[in-house]
C-alpha cells in the first residue's frame, strides 16, 4: 500500500490528506495532521469524496461529434480537429470570436496554460472561470 | 310495572363513559372500563345514551346471553339483524304485531314529524330524505286501519298553546310560558324544578292530543267503539313511551295512546314484514286527522314549535300576518337562542333551548324573576326531535352533525313545499273546532287537550 500526500479537491479550505492506494485504487483517505490547516481532521467530503475518481462514468477517450453523435476518436484526430477549427476562427474573425472557460478545480499550472493558450496562441483575452458560482 | 324504558346491558357495556358524558341530567354513573348504570329516578328517558352507545355484541367476545335471548329481552323482533348495543330502550313492537293480527281491533297509527325525514335512512337513503308518502304507504301496508298524523295534532297544539300564551300575556298570567311538547322536558321540570311547574303550558303534547282525539272524535267519525281502538304512535323519541303510560293520559276514557314505537322499531317491522320500503308508491295520510300544515311539520326541529306558534300567535294578536314565514331568527343549532319579534306594535320575546344541558341557566333566570321573555321552548335533544333517542342510530360519529342537519333540512323543505303553512289555517282544524271542540281553551278542549301539571305532580 502506498500513501500519497495531496490536497483535497473540494472546498477552498486547502485541507491536506493522504490517499492510500492499492492496485491503482484509492482505498482510504487519511487526514494529514502535520503542517496542515485541517490538523488531522477531514469532513465527509474529504474522507469519502474520492469514489468519483474510479467511477464507471469516467470519460476514457476523446470524442468528436460525427453525424450528430459523439464518437470515439484518437488524440491525434481530436487535436487536429480542434487546432484547425480554432485557428480558422482566429484567422477569420479574430481572437475575440473564441472564448475559454477555465477551471477552478484544476491546478494552477493548467489554468496558466489555459489562459496562455487563449491569449498567446488564439489572441483572445476572453478567458474566465466559475469563481462567481 | 313494565321493565324500565332505558337500560344499559351490563354484559355489553365496556364502561367507556360516553353515555355518562352525554346524559343531560347526570343519571348515568359507573367507573371507567366497568359497566355503567342508569338511575331511573333521574333519567328523563331522552335516549341520547342509546344514540351514542357503541358497545355492541361483538362476535370477538363471548357473552352468556345469546343473541336470540337478548332480542327477546329487549322486546325486539327475532328477525332483527343489526348489531345490539349496551344502552338500549324497551322494545314494544311485538304488541303492535299482535294488535295488527287481532281481527276485531281497529288500529290507528300516528307519526311524528321527525319520523318522515329519518326512516328512509334505515333503508339506505341519504340523511334526511323526506318520505311521508312511503311512510304512509308502509303503514297502510302493515295493516293499520287509519294512518293519521301527529302533525295534525301539532297544528292543534298551536291553536291551544297560542291561545294560552295570548291569554297569559293579556291576563297577566304566569310568564314566561314553557312549551310542553317534549315529555323529557316536562318530566325534568316535574322531577327537578317543580317550583316552576306553573310556567309550563297546560297543553298536552301533540301525541297525547292526537291520542285523545283518535278515541273520541276519530272513533265517532268511523263509528267505532273506542274500546276496540288500538292507538299506536311512531315517534323519534324514547320518552314518548313513558308519556303515553302516564296515568292521567286517559281523557278519552281509555289510555289515550296505547303504545309508542320508535322510528327504528317501525323500520324493523317493515323489514320483518318483507315490505320493500324504497319502492313503495307514495300514499297520503288519512283524512281528516292526517291533514297538516307546514307549521305542524317543523315541530320536529329545535325552534320549530316556536316558529309555528309565532306564525299563528302574532297573527292572532294583531290581526295581520307576519310579512315572512321564514323565521330564521328562531332556527339554528346553538344551545340557547333568544329573539325579539316586533310586529304591528306587539313585542314578543322568546327563548329557545336545544339540549337539556343548556337549560339550567335559563331556569335560574326565571326563578330569580329576571326572565324578560314571554315564551320558552325547550327540547331535550340536541337538534330537537330529529335527533331524538328513537331515531335511526348513526353509525359513524363523524357523521352525526351531518345527519342531524340533513333531517332538519328535510323538515324545513317539506314546510316550504306545503301550501298551507300556518296552523290556524288548517281546514281540518277549523272543522274540528266547529264540529267537536268549540273554541280553543273552551270547555271540551280543556277537558281533552289540557292537563294539570301541579295535580299530576301531587299524584306521583
Amino acid at each position: 500500500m502506498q500513501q500519497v500526500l495531496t490536497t483535497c479537491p473540494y472546498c477552498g479550505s486547502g485541507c491536506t490528506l493522504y490517499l492510500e492506494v492499492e492496485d491503482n485504487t484509492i482505498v482510504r483517505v487519511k487526514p494529514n495532521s502535520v503542517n496542515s490547516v485541517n490538523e488531522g481532521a477531514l469532513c465527509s467530503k474529504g474522507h469519502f469524496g474520492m469514489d468519483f475518481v474510479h467511477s464507471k462514468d469516467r470519460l476514457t477517450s476523446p470524442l468528436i461529434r460525427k453525424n450528430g453523435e459523439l464518437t470515439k476518436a484518437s488524440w491525434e484526430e481530436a487535436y487536429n480537429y480542434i487546432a484547425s477549427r480554432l485557428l480558422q476562427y482566429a484567422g477569420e474573425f479574430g481572437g475575440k470570436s473564441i472564448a475559454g472557460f477555465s477551471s477552478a478545480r484544476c491546478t494552477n499550472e493548467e489554468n496558466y496554460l489555459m489562459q496562455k493558450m487563449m491569449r498567446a496562441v488564439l489572441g483572445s483575452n476572453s478567458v474566465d472561470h466559475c469563481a462567481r458560482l | 310495572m313494565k321493565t324500565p324504558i332505558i337500560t344499559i346491558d351490563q354484559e355489553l357495556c365496556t364502561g367507556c363513559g360516553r353515555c355518562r358524558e352525554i346524559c343531560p341530567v347526570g343519571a348515568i354513573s359507573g367507573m371507567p372500563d366497568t359497566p355503567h348504570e342508569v338511575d331511573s329516578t333521574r333519567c328523563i328517558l331522552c335516549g341520547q345514551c342509546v344514540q351514542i352507545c357503541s358497545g355492541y355484541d361483538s362476535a370477538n367476545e363471548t357473552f352468556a346471553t345469546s343473541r336470540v335471548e337478548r332480542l327477546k329481552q329487549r322486546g325486539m323482533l327475532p328477525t332483527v339483524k343489526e348489531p345490539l348495543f349496551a344502552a338500549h330502550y324497551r322494545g314494544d313492537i311485538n304488541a303492535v304485531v299482535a294488535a295488527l293480527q287481532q281481527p276485531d281491533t281497529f288500529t290507528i297509527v300516528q307519526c311524528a314529524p321527525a319520523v318522515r325525514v329519518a326512516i328512509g335512512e334505515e333503508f339506505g337513503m341519504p340523511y334526511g330524505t323526506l318520505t311521508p308518502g312511503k311512510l304512509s304507504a308502509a303503514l297502510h301496508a302493515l295493516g293499520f286501519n287509519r294512518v293519521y298524523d301527529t302533525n295534525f295534532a301539532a297544528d292543534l297544539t298551536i291553536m291551544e298553546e297560542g291561545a294560552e300564551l295570548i291569554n297569559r300575556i293579556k291576563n297577566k298570567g304566569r310568564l314566561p310560558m314553557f312549551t310542553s311538547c317534549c315529555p323529557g322536558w316536562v318530566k325534568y321540570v316535574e322531577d327537578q324544578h317543580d317550583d316552576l311547574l306553573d310556567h309550563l303550558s297546560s297543553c298536552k303534547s301533540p301525541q297525547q292530543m292526537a291520542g285523545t282525539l283518535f278515541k273520541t272524535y276519530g272513533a265517532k267519525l268511523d263509528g267505532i267503539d273506542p274500546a276496540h281502538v288500538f292507538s299506536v304512535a311512531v315517534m323519534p323519541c324514547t320518552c314518548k313511551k313513558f308519556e303515553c303510560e302516564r296515568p292521567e293520559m286517559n281523557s278519552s276514557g281509555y289510555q289515550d295512546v296505547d303504545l309508542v314505537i320508535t322510528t327504528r322499531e317501525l323500520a324493523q317491522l317493515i323489514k320483518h314484514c318483507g315490505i320493500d320500503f324504497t319502492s313503495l308508491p307514495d300514499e297520503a295520510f288519512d283524512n281528516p286527522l292526517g291533514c297538516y300544515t307546514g307549521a305542524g311539520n317543523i315541530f320536529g326541529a329545535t325552534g320549530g314549535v316556536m316558529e309555528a306558534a309565532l306564525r299563528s300567535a302574532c297573527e292572532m294578536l294583531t290581526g295581520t300576518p307576519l310579512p315572512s314565514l321564514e323565521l330564521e331568527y328562531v332556527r339554528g343549532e346553538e344551545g340557547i337562542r333568544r329573539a325579539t319579534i316586533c310586529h304591528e306594535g306587539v313585542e314578543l320575546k322568546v327563548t329557545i333551548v336545544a339540549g337539556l344541558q343548556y337549560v339550567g341557566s335559563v331556569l335560574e333566570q326565571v326563578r330569580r324573576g329576571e326572565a324578560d321573555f314571554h315564551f320558552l321552548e325547550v327540547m331535550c335533544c340536541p337538534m330537537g326531535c330529529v335527533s331524538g333517542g328513537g331515531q335511526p342510530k348513526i353509525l359513524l360519529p363523524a357523521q352525526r352533525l351531518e345527519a342531524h342537519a340533513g333531517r332538519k333540512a328535510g323538515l324545513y323543505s317539506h314546510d316550504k313545499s306545503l301550501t298551507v303553512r300556518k296552523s290556524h289555517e288548517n281546514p281540518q282544524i277549523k272543522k274540528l273546532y266547529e264540529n267537536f271542540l268549540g273554541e280553543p281553551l273552551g270547555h271540551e278542549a280543556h277537558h281533552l287537550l289540557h292537563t294539570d301539571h301541579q295535580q299530576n305532580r301531587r299524584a306521583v
Partner: protein
Amino acid sequence: MNMPYRLNRFVIADPGKCIGCRVCEIACAAVHEKEQTPLTVGNMQNPVQPRLYLVRSVQGSVPIQCRHCEDAPCAAACPVLAITQKEDVIFVDESLCVGCKTCMLACPFGALKLVPVFENGLPVEQNLPLHPESQHQGGSTAGEKEEYKQLHVASKCDRCSGLAEPACVANCPQQALKVIQPERHLTMRMHEAALSLAAVARKYAS
C-alpha cells in the same frame, strides 16, 4: 433513508387515550360493507366484523390492528399469494384466499382473522356441500338448514386505502388512533432526541 417514505404506514392507538368505546370497530366494519357504507345501525344487516380488535383488560383497553409489516409474515405464509403488498398496504385479495388459516398463525399481533362472508344479511355459500349429518354452521341466523358451506376469507386492516383517512382514525371520539408514517415519526423522534442532547450539552458543558 435512501428515499423518503418507503415504509408502510399503519394505524396505532394510544392506550392512554382509548376509552374502549368500540367506535373504531363499528366504523371499520361499516366502511368495509360490500355495498355502500351504511349510514345507520339499521342498515348493518351483516354481522359486525371489524378488522381491528378492541382488547380489554384490567390495564385498560386498546384496539389492536395490522402493522403492515414490511416483511409481512402473513404474506410470506400465504400459499396462494392472496396476501401481497399494494402501494403501502398489506392487502388480502379475498378472491384468492382459500381459508387455510396459515396467515392467522403467522401474524404475531393477532391482527388477522378468518371470517365468514355475508351479503345482504345472508351467508355467502360456496360450492362445498355439507354432509347431511353435519352440524349447523351458525352462519344463518334464520336457522334454516344449509346445504353448502359458508365462504370464509382472511380479513385484516387495509388502512382504508381509498379513503382520505382510515375510518377508525376519523371516528374515534378520543382521537386515540392515528396513522403513523414511520419515517416522519423517526424524524420527529430524532429531532426531539437532538434537542435533549443540546439541552444537556448547554447545561453540563465540558
